[in-house]
């Protein structure tokens, strides 16, 4: 009945735990993130979804007081510990899109070119132009902004800004894209565009998305993990989770009985 089975894991976590000061936020999470699929993370506010997401590209390192323990891998390589992937490189391979569109106060062009410049992926001029154009095209934004690439990235609509942020994330050719509630500030049409984009992007990338919209999780993901109080309660094919979840807590949450 549930046809979708996981491909090889692109990323894994084992006993991944995070504390802020002495307050535990994640309590030993084991998760396999399948390659080339969209994995949705759902759960009540404060359950640790964003914390978990930030572990996947070491964004927690930048938060004072945050300590991470346990293991995480990307293509089998350790992310933490001595011999772990260099964090700057890691963030190029595992990109992130945030809840509020956060373009830099620079031109649309410079927003997209930022990563490729940082990682010296393309030379200025024609080569960079092509990288910018390709990223904007894949983010479904090229047709709307190609005649105003020099205008400020902050001067376009919220939905366009979010697609600009996605263009910025994919311009460095990441392998994984993390999205933390990418549509929460968008109207239904802009949301639908992003969801369509996610569906297209999953041909080339592995995507992990945090969302508070059960319908969005159901629409865009192939796998869903339900977090509660810093732990994963249930993970499985999205179709299974939304038609016949195995765990009573999962069912209670997705049907709007608690949370």
């Amino acid at each position, binding site marked *: 009945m549930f046809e979708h089975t996981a491909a090889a894991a692109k990323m894994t976590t084992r006993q991944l735990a995070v504390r802020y000061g002495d307050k535990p936020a994640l309590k030993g999470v084991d998760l396999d993130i399948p390659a080339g699929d969209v994995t949705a993370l759902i759960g009540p506010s404060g359950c640790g979804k964003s914390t978990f997401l930030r572990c996947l590209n070491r964004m927690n390192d930048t938060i004072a007081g945050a300590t991470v323990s346990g293991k995480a891998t990307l293509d089998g390589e350790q992310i933490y510990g001595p011999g772990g992937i260099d964090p700057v490189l890691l963030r190029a391979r595992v990109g992130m899109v945030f809840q509020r569109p956060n373009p830099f106060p620079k031109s649309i062009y410079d927003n997209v070119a930022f990563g490729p410049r940082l990682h010296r992926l393309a030379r200025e001029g024609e080569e960079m132009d092509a990288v910018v154009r390709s990223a904007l095209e894949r983010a479904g934004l090229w047709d709307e902004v190609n005649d105003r690439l020099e205008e400020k990235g902050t001067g376009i609509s919220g939905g366009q800004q979010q697609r600009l942020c996605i263009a910025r994330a994919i311009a460095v050719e990441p392998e994984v894209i993390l999205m933390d509630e990418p549509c929460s500030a968008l109207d239904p049409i802009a949301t639908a565009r992003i969801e369509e984009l996610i569906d297209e992007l999953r041909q080339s990338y592995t995507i992990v998305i945090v969302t508070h919209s*059960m319908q969005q999780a159901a629409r865009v993901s192939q796998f869903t993990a339900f977090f509660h109080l810093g732990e994963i309660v249930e993970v499985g094919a999205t179709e299974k989770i*939304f*038609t016949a979840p195995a765990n009573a807590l999962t069912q209670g949450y997705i049907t*709007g009985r*608690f949370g």
Partner: protein
Amino acid sequence: MPHIVKSFDAELAKLEDALSRMGGLAEAQLDAAIRALEKRDSELAARVVSDDAQVDACETFIGEQAIKVLALRAPVANDLRTVVSALKVAGEIERIADLAANGAKRSLVLSQLPALKPMHSVIRLGRLAQEMVKDGLDAYLGRDAERALAVRERDQELDDVYSSLFREILTYMMEDPRTITPCSHLMFIAKNLERIGDHATNISELTYFRVTGAAVTGERPKKDNSSFVGTESE
């Protein structure tokens, strides 16, 4: 556990109440149809025929209510299964009541003609079907998967009674061709009752799905074998 949004529970309760009412109506229709047949009560039979519209109205209401809940609440998990199975169960109940009304229509003709001996067996078949419907609906409304499976098991018994009844009526017609008209009606009534058992079985399977989220596995009970009568050498 109730929903945080109380009106969601109220909408689901409306659906459940309507199903319960519809099920009760269909059971009463079936009971009246069997009594009308047994007692040769034309007045009662006529009432069954005209009351069928009430069951249809229930189905329409449940259809509208289910679509409303789907559109406005986007139910998932057990809520989704509740709404989808309510739609389907309403369809099954509508068929049950329709078959009962059809039987009542035929019993209007039968009560104008001389009584037939196989009638007793048809009544027995009717009581069996009636029990299956009652237990099937009770299991659904009580969300009792075990009881639903037990109902499903009983379908074979009904099929067996029907098959032997088929032969009995056939023999009766062969012995006295003047009974062919009433016997044909009786045969159709018997077939209706057998099919009512199938609908009760479907309700049981929907109950199982609603409660567990899984389809019933394992062989569906064997069907009646009356379709082979005449092919074997006797």
